[in-house]
C-alpha cells in the first residue's frame, strides 16, 4: 500500500538532461527501477541516463507514449512554474517539484491552476517522496529508510533524514516519507497527508515534522483531533528562532504570535498530538506513543 507512490508508479523527470536532473533521475531509477523517461522541451527523441530512458518534448507525450503518471521536477526556478502547470495540464497524477527559489507570486498562480486539475502536487523546494522498497521520487537518500509502518511528513530535508534514522534505530520502518517543503506556498499540506496516512492500511502511526512560520501545523493538529485515529507524533523546529528573521526556508519566519514554535506545540498537545520536545527524541517519542499498540491492535 503506502501512499502517493509505489513500485507501480511510472515516473518521469522534467529537466532530466540538466546536471541535477540526470544525477537524481539515475538514483531514482537505481532505487526501484520505475523511472520511465524524462522531459526536456526541444530534446525529444534523445535518450538520457546512458540510453536507459527516452526523452520527450512534453509531459503529454510522455504520458501517451510511456504511460507516465508521476513527474519529478528539477527545472531551474525561472521555468519551474511553467513545468508544474504543464505536468498538471497533461494529467500527470502526482507532481513533485524539488526546485528551490521559485517566486512566491508565481506559486500562488500555479497552485490555483493545479487545483483546477485532478493532479496532486508536492513541493516546491522539497526533498520529495520516498516509499521504502517501492519508489523514490526526489532526493532523499534511499539507504537510510526501511520498509515499515510509520508515515513521515516533514517541511525539512535533512531533519527528515534525522527523524527516519532515529525511527530505524528504534526498530521502526516507514510506509512513506513525504517532504512537503518549507516555502510559503506549497501544494500538498500536512493535513492532506494526515488524511492519506489515516486511510492507508500499512501506516500505524504518523510523524509530523514542522517548523516556525505559517499555520499549517495548527490546521493539521486540529484535523488530526477530529479525523485521525492513529497516533500522531509532532515536532516543531525553530524554538530558538528570533521573530522576524527568515530561518533558511522562505516560509520559516515568525511573523505573528501564533507562528512561534511554542504556540504550535501547545496547540498540537491540546489536539492530542504527542509533542516531541528535543529533536533527539523523535524516535523515542514514537516508541512511547506506540507502547500500547502492537501491530495495530490496542492491548
Amino acid at each position, binding site marked *: 500500500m503506502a501512499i502517493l507512490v509505489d513500485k507501480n508508479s511510472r515516473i518521469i523527470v522534467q529537466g532530466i538532461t540538466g546536471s541535477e536532473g540526470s544525477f537524481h533521475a539515475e538514483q531514482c531509477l537505481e532505487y526501484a527501477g520505475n523511472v520511465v523517461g524524462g522531459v526536456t522541451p526541444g530534446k525529444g527523441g534523445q535518450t538520457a541516463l546512458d540510453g536507459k530512458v527516452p526523452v520527450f518534448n512534453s509531459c503529454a507525450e510522455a504520458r501517451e507514449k510511456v504511460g507516465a503518471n508521476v513527474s519529478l521536477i528539477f527545472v531551474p526556478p525561472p521555468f519551474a512554474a511553467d513545468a508544474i502547470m504543464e505536468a498538471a495540464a497533461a494529467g500527470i497524477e502526482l507532481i513533485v517539484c524539488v526546485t528551490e527559489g521559485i*517566486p512566491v507570486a508565481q506559486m500562488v498562480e500555479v497552485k*490555483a491552476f493545479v487545483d483546477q486539475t485532478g493532479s496532486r502536487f508536492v513541493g516546491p523546494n522539497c526533498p520529495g517522496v520516498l516509499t521504502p522498497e517501492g519508489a523514490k521520487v526526489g532526493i532523499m537518500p534511499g539507504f537510510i529508510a526501511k520498509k515499515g509502518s510509520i508515515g513521515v511528513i516533514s517541511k*525539512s530535508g*535533512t531533519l527528515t533524514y534525522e527523524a527516519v534514522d532515529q525511527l530505524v534505530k528504534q526498530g521502526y520502518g516507514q510506509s512513506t516519507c513525504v517532504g512537503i517543503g518549507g516555502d510559503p506556498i506549497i501544494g500538498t499540506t500536512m493535513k492532506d497527508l494526515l488524511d492519506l496516512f489515516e486511510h492507508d492500511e500499512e501506516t500505524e502511526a504518523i510523524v509530523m515534522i514542522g517548523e516556525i512560520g505559517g499555520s499549517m501545523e495548527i490546521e493539521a493538529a486540529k484535523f488530526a483531533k477530529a479525523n485521525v485515529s492513529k497516533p500522531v507524533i509532532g515536532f516543531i523546529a525553530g524554538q530558538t528562532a528570533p521573530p522576524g528573521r527568515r530561518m533558511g526556508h522562505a516560509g520559516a519566519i515568525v511573523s505573528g504570535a501564533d507562528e512561534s514554535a511554542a504556540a504550535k506545540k501547545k496547540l498540537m498537545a491540546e489536539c492530542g498530538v504527542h509533542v516531541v520536545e*528535543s529533536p533527539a527524541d523523535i524516535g523515542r517519542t514514537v516508541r512511547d506513543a506506540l507502547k500500547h499498540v502492537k501491530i495495530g491492535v490496542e492491548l
Partner: protein
Amino acid sequence: MKIHEYQAKELLKSYAIPIQDGVTIEDLAQAEAALDQVNEELGAEQYVIKAQVHAGGRGKGGGVKFSPSRESALENITNILGMTLVTPQTGAEGRLVKKVMVAQALDIAKEFYAAITLDRAKGMDVFMVSSEGGVEIEEVAKTSPEKIVKEWVVPGFGLRPFQGRRLAAALGLEGPAARQAVGMFQKLYTLYRELDCSIVEINPLIVTDQGDLVALDAKINFDDNALYLHKDVADLRDLDEEDPSEVEAGAFNLNYIKLDGTVGCMVNGAGLAMATMDIIKQRGGSPANFLDVGGGANVETVKNGFRIILSDPNVKAVLINIFGGIVRCDRIANGIIEAVKVLDLNVPVVVRLAGTNADIAKELLANSGVDLISADSFEDAAVKVVEAAAGN
C-alpha cells in the same frame, strides 16, 4: 529584502500613488539645501525629520520629529543624523542613522492602515485596511480584530474595483474620497504584484485637512526569490542595514543569521539547523548563529562557514552537525580538516557526521591529527558542545 521608507515612497510615486514627499540626505551639509528644496518645490513651511533605518517603531525611539519651523528642522536633523536609534525592533544595540528624510508636514484629518501581503493558509494575497491607523497593527489585531477588514485577491484577477469599494466603505469613505481610495488600492496591488513584493504596508494612510488621501509612511519588502526579475529593485538593497557577516555569508551562498549566544553551529539543511539550535538551548547552551551550508556543501563552503562563525568573538565552541544524504560526509570531513589546519582554531569543535559515508569520515577525522571532539549522536553532540563552551 527590505528597503527604506524614502525608497518605498519613490516606488509609490512611480505608480502615481500620492505620498508625503521630501528629500533624503546623508550629510549635515546637505540640510539647508534640502530644506530649501522641500520649501520651494512642495511649499512646506513645517517639516518632519525622519530617520531612515530598516526597523519599525522609529517614532518611539525619537527617530521621527515634527518640526514647526526651519530652525527646529535643522536642530532635529542635527540630532537624528548620526544618532544610534533604539526601537522595539532594533534590539538594545540600536541602529546608526546614516540617512534622514526631510519631509513636508501635512495636516492630518484621519489616519488609516492599509497593507497587502500573502495569506499563506488561503494561498492568496490579502488586502487589509483598518480605520485604526498610525498605531501598532498587531495590537489592533489582538484587541479588536473586527476593525481590520480584508479582501482576498483571486490569483490572476487582481484587486477588482468592487473590492476596492468595499475597502473604502470599511474606512467610512464616501464620494470623491472613496473613488480616490479605490484607485489608490488598485495601484497599490498592481505595484505589489508587478514588483514581487512580500509586503506593502502604508501606516498611516492619511486623509489631509484638504480631503486628500496620502501615504504618510511606507514599508515595502520583496520576495528574495524574485529579485532576479527586478534588477532595479535589487539595486535598492542597502548593505549598511545588514549584518556584515551575514552579507559575507550570502556571497558564499551560505545561509547565516547571527544570534547572541556562544555556541557556533554549522549544519546542512534549514530544518536540521533550527533543530540543532533548539537542542543546544535545551541542553543549557545558547546558539551563536543559524548556519545552513546547504545541499552542495564542499571543502570551500565548510572553510568559509568556519571563518564566518569564528569572526564572532562571542563563539566559545563550535558544533558541526551534518546528516549526509546527497552530501557525502567524507567530503565534509576533508573540508573540516583543511579548515582547521588553515584557520588556527582557538575554540573546541564538536563534530557529528551521520548518513552517507559517515564511517569513512570518522576515520578520516580520527587519523588527521587535528584536535576535534567526536560525537556519536545528535544528543551526544549537543551535550558535548555545551560542555565545551562552558569550559572555554
